[in-house]
């Protein structure tokens, strides 16, 4: 066997092993949701017949539709608000000239480097003073203006044909109408890619909702799962059904828009 053939085979083998490691926890999640907790703890990794039992246990302990509704409501509202705010900001940074534009932009980008843990306490006291703690609004608001998404939209705007704006201005179209009726329709694919990124981030958010939301009828699915898992003797069968339920929406969204997602992940840093 030639040397390049050995290299070729070992390359495939390496990727197969990596893929199996990547996929195994998903398999484990689905299999465990069909098993009893005692079997899961014993490391049983074949399908069982407890799926319905586990699902019933889950729905008897939490109001699943309500929790699901809370999570979707937060994720969708914050996604739409983020897209609106950040796309306008990204558009403005690229289109309008002003003296301090680059300085403001640099300051904005440095905020990406501040870890959330450092912002947690000021944010918490701020929302406390505004009387917004324990509301969904408090979960949504801090996510709305994200430096990364503004950065993303500015990069996308660089490819936008600016002659269209000049043409519209000559025709006497108002600035906000140019944005709404010229820019937005053309940039549809950028919007859909940003939609996935922001939606997944807010669907999966944990730390900030954990701090803000106290009432049990406001909680999101991640908070509920985490509280189940930290119990003294966690019922893994029930929890695994919950993780399947919580992973499905972002998984489905990802499969539906896979191409745009990967393109946007890679496009933003070019």
């Amino acid at each position, binding site marked *: 066997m030639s040397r390049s053939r050995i290299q*070729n085979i070992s*390359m*495939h083998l*390496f*990727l197969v092993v*990596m*893929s199996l*490691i*990547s*996929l195994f*926890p*998903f398999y*484990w*999640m689905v299999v465990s949701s069909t098993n009893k907790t005692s079997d*899961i*703890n*014993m*490391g*049983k*990794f074949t399908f069982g017949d407890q799926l319905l039992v586990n699902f019933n246990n889950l729905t008897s302990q939490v109001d699943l539709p309500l929790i699901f509704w809370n999570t979707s409501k937060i994720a969708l509202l914050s996604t739409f608000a983020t897209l609106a705010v950040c796309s306008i900001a990204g558009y403005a940074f690229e289109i309008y000239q002003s003296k301090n534009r680059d300085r403001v932009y640099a300051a904005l980008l440095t905020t*990406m*480097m*501040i*870890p*959330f*843990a*450092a*912002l*947690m*306490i*000021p944010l*918490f*006291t701020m929302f406390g003073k505004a009387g917004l703690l324990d509301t969904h609004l408090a979960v949504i608001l801090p996510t709305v203006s994200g430096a990364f998404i503004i950065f993303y939209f500015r990069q996308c705007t660089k490819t936008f044909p600016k002659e269209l704006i000049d043409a519209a201005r000559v025709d006497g179209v108002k600035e906000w109408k140019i944005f709404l009726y010229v820019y937005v329709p053309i940039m549809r694919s950028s919007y859909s890619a940003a939609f996935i990124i922001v939606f*997944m981030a807010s*669907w*999966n958010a*944990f*730390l900030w909702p954990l*701090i803000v939301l106290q009432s049990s009828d406001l909680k999101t699915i*991640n908070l509920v*799962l*985490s509280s189940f*898992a*930290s119990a003294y003797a966690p019922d*893994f069968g029930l*929890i*695994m059904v919950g*993780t399947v339920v*919580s*992973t499905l929406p*972002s*998984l489905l969204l*990802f499969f539906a828009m*896979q191409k745009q997602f*990967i393109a946007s*992940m*890679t*496009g933003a*840093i*070019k």
Partner: protein
Amino acid sequence: MRLFHDPMFKTALLNTLTFLVIQVPIMILLSLAISSCLNSPRLKYKQWFRLAIFLPCVTSLVAYSILFKSMFELDGVINSFLLFLHIIDEPIAWLADPFWAKVTIIIAITWRWTGYNMIFYLSAMQNIDKSVYEAARIDGVSPIKQFFFITVPLLKPVILFTSITSTIGTLQLFDEVMNITNGGPANSTLTLSLYIYNLSFSFVPNFGYAAAVSYVIVAFAAVLALLQFKVAKDR
């Protein structure tokens, strides 16, 4: 000034730095290796491999933390698998032993984020002019040397970008340690973020002191980012 005499703070700082120093290089090397394989023209089923390795990024931090917690139980699936292969003779107490708990966290983070970094490298590699490699191949440069002397230098800006984002990510490590080990056993996986959270919301609330710890994280993020810029420029 209480900060410098606080053993909990020192532990949290040390743990966070340990995660940083061990996990970030492993993940970056691993995702570089994977993406250079995925970029090879001779590879079959590219889409499938890429999809499989990227998939962990879709899961929520809470969901995968719980998955790993159950997989790494004392008689859980990982131990039975290792026992079955005769790699170990007796089960490892992944979550109850200070050393193995750290290892578990590192494995978990690597699983979740390697695919994410891979995507950045892959796109950067696809932008490298193919003729560079052709010239190298004609000159008889081996693929391994091509990787170190062509691919890595050309990818430097992207490697810098991912190492900064991973560094910041590690400094904010919270969801995983909270859900897998809750900082234990004996604070061996306590991170700075979890410590701030405990100070502000679990123990008797102490916002002032927690804010002081927050400043330390900001300072660290800034210093580490500057350091990485410097290293990248010197080469």
